[in-house]
């Protein structure tokens, strides 16, 4: 509001001047000569007098650049390529200006001024975008903003010493801006947003180059935001074209991550699976299939594979999502810890369901995040307990414990929907060989063997089978659990009615069993 009179005209004049200087051969290498001259002009015009004026200058410049794009797009006189080239002429010049201002502001040795300026500019771009999005709605076009972010990413990741020294702060600034513009806030920008977070330079820096994996939590946050946005739309079985494209694009990005940074998917699998809806089975399997690159997985179809003899099952996987904080309220957490330790209060088990079931609304009856956190927390406590006794989890060591009481109570007490979600929470831990995979595999098989109704066994089978009949990839732990279930006579799998309930089901089991055997 209340731009000083004449500021818009000054900004427009300066922007035109800069674009001319940028394209002039006299601008010098990387526009450095042009920049020196331009900064003088900015001083002369009084733009650099106050922080308020600088901020307004940026805002007006961005609005002018965006306006150029909308007008070019509306003209529809030229081909798409020429229209874009026309837009990019102004945008690329403007981005160069921002990059130079960031690089040369403040002290060479003190990055604070530079990063503050970058955060300011990115914040303004985001603010202008959100306002534009709010006003234009279905008429919103991502072109200008996508170009600004893309080119700024390229400019500020050039191999220059001054930029390398502040790269973490630069990438953090980008992540902050992308978080502000996450799909739930700017759905019209989602396709461009996905392009940005999957840009080769963005992935390289965030996941491959920042030291000590400092970029991983931020990148995981961005992906989680994407999944959260997609979730309500993916709950419906049929995807319209625009959603199918987004889904397919997300799968591609996940495949790249699975191939290039599997450890990243391993470390953050919990948070991702917490927000991906249960019907997105292949997407979930993709994440759960990740395993560390230095690991060699034994062939799950090896005859007489002795999983409990594998050295890897003693090792705990990293879970870098703070899931314990989800176990709320504090009184419930206190009771849970108390029950695990002492099997008291005695009412804990009977009241357990009431904490997880939160409404009567179909499709929203259960607190799925709490369910997932509870399952993982209890399981990890169980593993620690067993290992503290010098044992390893097995069908005999996991039984007769407070932990198994909790699981058995849930599997019996929940209705079919709740039980399905509970079993999914367990199946989400069936991954590469590690202590969690082994413990939860044993747990699932134990619950099957000890089930007091066939419905429980049927649902355990359903949860495993639906993860197996999707196209690849399949997590190692899922395969070995299912193979054990159908191969080990102890479980009398083939004698159950649900295996033969329909010709297609029977054929499916026989087909899966053949490929397993």
């Amino acid at each position, binding site marked *: 509001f209340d731009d000083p009179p004449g500021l818009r005209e000054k900004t427009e004049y300066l922007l035109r001047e800069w674009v001319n200087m940028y394209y002039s051969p006299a601008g010098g290498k990387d526009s450095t000569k042009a920049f020196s001259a331009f900064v003088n002009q900015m001083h002369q015009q009084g733009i650099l007098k106050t922080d308020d004026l600088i901020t307004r200058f940026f805002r007006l410049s961005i609005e002018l650049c965006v306006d150029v794009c909308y007008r070019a797009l509306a003209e529809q006189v030229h081909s798409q390529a020429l229209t874009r080239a026309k837009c990019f002429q102004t945008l690329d010049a403007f981005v160069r200006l921002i990059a130079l201002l960031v690089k040369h502001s403040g002290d060479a040795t003190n990055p604070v001024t530079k990063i503050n300026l970058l955060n300011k500019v990115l914040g303004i771009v985001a603010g202008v975008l959100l306002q534009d999005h709010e006003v234009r709605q279905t008429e*919103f*076009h*991502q072109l200008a903003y996508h170009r600004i972010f893309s080119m700024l990413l390229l400019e500020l990741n050039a191999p220059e010493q001054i930029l390398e020294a502040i790269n973490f702060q630069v990438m953090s600034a980008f992540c902050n801006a992308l978080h502000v513009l996450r799909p*739930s806030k700017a759905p019209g920008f989602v*396709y461009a947003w996905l392009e940005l977070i999957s840009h080769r330079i963005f992935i390289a820096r965030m996941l491959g180059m920042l030291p000590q994996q400092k970029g991983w939590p931020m990148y995981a946050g961005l992906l989680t935001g994407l999944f959260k946005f997609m979730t*309500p739309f993916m709950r419906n079985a049929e995807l319209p074209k*625009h959603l199918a494209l987004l889904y397919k694009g997300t799968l591609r990005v996940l495949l790249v991550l699975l191939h290039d940074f599997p450890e990243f998917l391993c470390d953050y699998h919990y948070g991702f699976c917490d927000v991906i809806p249960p019907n997105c089975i292949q997407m979930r399997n993709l994440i759960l299939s990740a395993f560390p690159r230095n690991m060699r997985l034994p062939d799950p179809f090896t005859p007489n594979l002795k999983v409990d003899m594998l050295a890897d099952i003693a090792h705990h996987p990293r879970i870098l999502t703070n899931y314990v904080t989800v176990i709320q309220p504090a009184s419930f957490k206190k009771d849970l810890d108390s029950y695990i330790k002492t099997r008291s209060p005695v009412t804990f088990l009977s009241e357990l369901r009431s904490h997880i079931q939160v409404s009567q609304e179909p499709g929203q009856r259960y607190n799925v995040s709490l369910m997932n956190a509870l399952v993982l927390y209890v399981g990890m406590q169980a593993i620690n307990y067993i290992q503290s006794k010098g044992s390893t989890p097995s069908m005999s060591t996991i039984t007769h414990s407070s932990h198994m009481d909790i699981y058995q109570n849930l599997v019996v007490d929940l209705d079919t929907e709740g039980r399905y979600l509970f079993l999914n929470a367990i199946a989400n831990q069936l991954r590469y060989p590690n202590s969690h995979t082994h413990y939860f595999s044993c747990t699932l098989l134990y619950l099957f063997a000890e089930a007091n109704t066939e419905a429980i066994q049927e649902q355990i089978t359903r949860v495993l089978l639906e993860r197996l009949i999707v196209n690849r990839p399949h997590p190692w732990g899922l395969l070995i659990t299912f193979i054990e279930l159908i191969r080990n006579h102890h479980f009398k799998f083939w004698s159950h009615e649900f295996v033969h309930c329909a010709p297609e089901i029977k054929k499916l089991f026989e087909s899966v069993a053949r490929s397993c055997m």
Partner: protein
Amino acid sequence: TLSKEQRLQQSVMESCFHHLPLPSDSERLRNYLPRNPCPTPTYHCQV
């Protein structure tokens, strides 16, 4: 069912689906400018 906000999000997405970003939007412009510009007859290949 989707909430009102989600339905609006979908309609905005659907509209933007019709002008998706291009891969070249993330790459610098490469201006293939003629080194020795010369007017050529219009019937010759110009680009």
